[in-house]
């Protein structure tokens, strides 16, 4: 029995070999074109390569579509889009407030100002433009909120343990930074600890700086809410459990309450150091 991709494929259905192209394996290559002609799968080399082309094109398109539609990829795009929407809205807001300040007396600062302007009734052509511009910024802020709601709804089903431990948005950020849930699951916890702090990490590796204690996990209450001298310990403990959570989510997908209790215990111990020192 041959290992060839065309074994068992229908020679008249150009795409029937696609599944075997995707899932098949062989311990070593062989002269597949000759074998295909000998077994009658193809009439000659030209015919063989035409069939191979159809099968590989179909296999690659299917595999790409499947991987790109996966929930973790969608989550990663959503969190990047949310950040884009927020950053862009802030940029538009600056212009809106600056411009509106020349037309109106009482413009609140920042994003409140934008919502305020967008709600006004323009009287002149210039006011019409600035109100319209403010409306776009408000739309972007609403889009950001919708994206956040989407992430909050999806993350717990895509990565239940990671979403519970990190919160849905940070879970999505970690997945995005790692390049997918599988990649995140395969990263050592020391890497998870500094995801999002790549500049600082490379500066350290080149000998120009101390090692970064935390990357994007800094936004987690367990890190940010711990006093400075214990933050390294807190970040290490959190990253350790986050990478276990990612592995469970990727390889099994069931929710493990024990894991979250263990982390809570560990954080209590780390934070107790501060209380002990206060007592002395």
């Amino acid at each position: 029995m041959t290992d060839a991709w065309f074994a068992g494929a229908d020679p008249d259905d150009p795409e029937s070999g696609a599944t075997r192209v995707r899932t098949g394996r062989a311990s070593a290559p062989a002269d597949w074109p000759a074998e295909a002609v000998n077994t009658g799968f193809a009439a000659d080399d030209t015919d063989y390569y035409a069939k191979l082309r159809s099968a590989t094109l179909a296999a690659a398109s299917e595999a790409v579509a499947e991987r790109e539609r996966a929930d973790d990829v969608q989550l990663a795009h959503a969190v990047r889009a949310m950040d884009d929407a927020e950053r862009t809205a802030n940029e538009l807001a600056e212009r809106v407030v600056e411009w509106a300040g020349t037309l109106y007396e009482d413009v609140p600062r920042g994003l409140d100002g934008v919502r305020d302007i967008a709600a006004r009734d323009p009287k002149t052509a210039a006011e019409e433009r600035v109100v319209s511009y403010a409306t776009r910024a408000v739309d972007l802020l609403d889009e950001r909120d919708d994206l956040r709601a989407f992430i909050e709804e999806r993350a717990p089903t895509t990565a239940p343990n990671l979403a519970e431990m990190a919160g849905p948005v940070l879970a999505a950020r970690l997945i995005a930074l790692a390049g997918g849930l599988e990649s995140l699951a395969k990263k050592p916890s020391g890497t998870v600890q500094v995801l999002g702090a790549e500049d600082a990490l490379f500066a350290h590796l080149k000998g120009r700086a101390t090692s970064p204690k935390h990357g994007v996990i800094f936004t987690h209450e367990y890190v940010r809410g711990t006093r400075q001298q214990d933050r390294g310990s807190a970040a290490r403990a959190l990253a350790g459990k986050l990478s276990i959570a990612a592995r469970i989510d990727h390889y099994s997908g069931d929710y493990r309450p024990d894991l979250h209790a263990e982390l809570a215990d560990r954080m209590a111990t780390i934070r107790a150091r501060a209380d002990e020192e206060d007592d002395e």
Partner: protein
Amino acid sequence: MSDDSSAGDADVDLPEGVERRTFGGRQRLSTRGAQVYGEPVDADGWRAWDAGRSKLGAMLELGMDTGLVGGESVLYLGAASGTTVSHVADFAGPTYAVEFAPRPVRDLVGVAEDRDNLFPLLKDARDPESYAHVVEAGIDCLVMDVATRGQATVAVRNRQFLADDGRLLMAVKARSEDVTAEPDDVFDDVVAELEPAYEILDTARLDRFHADHLGIVARPK
């Protein structure tokens, strides 16, 4: 064959199907085929092959003797979105393009749709058994441009596809192995790891086009 090869740095013959032609007043490598990435195309359908975006293009531009003659079978590892492999398929025979990341393969499929001899494979080059049932034995040329740690290991593992008189054309990216090490040290290690499996025929730094890259031409031992 080019009728004006004196214009380049190379004394070595270019493969059949690769020519130096004039684009924007400058002699550049080119192949003939459907346009892929917005590269300049001349009136005869030749499209410029940008050595700054292609490690293999840089190896040819620098006059390395790649042994390519045109029409050979090629296994290309690290095809990415198909920028370089599109030029290879323009002058080579059956061309198998392996790429691990789904996003670039989306573009690679588009490139392959315009070419009869280009076969895209969403596979991991570190795991040759996952495509040995598709890629034929006795390949004439193994091109490697994988930006991952363990580039030499990948080359050794994929030697089984090469014909005895085949060629390995490899671009080693120093930073993929170790961001902190000196590139020369990384290159020495890679060459040392290749040597049990390959006879090294030529090496050249590609820095004029690609910082901290080494081009290697080798044949199986």
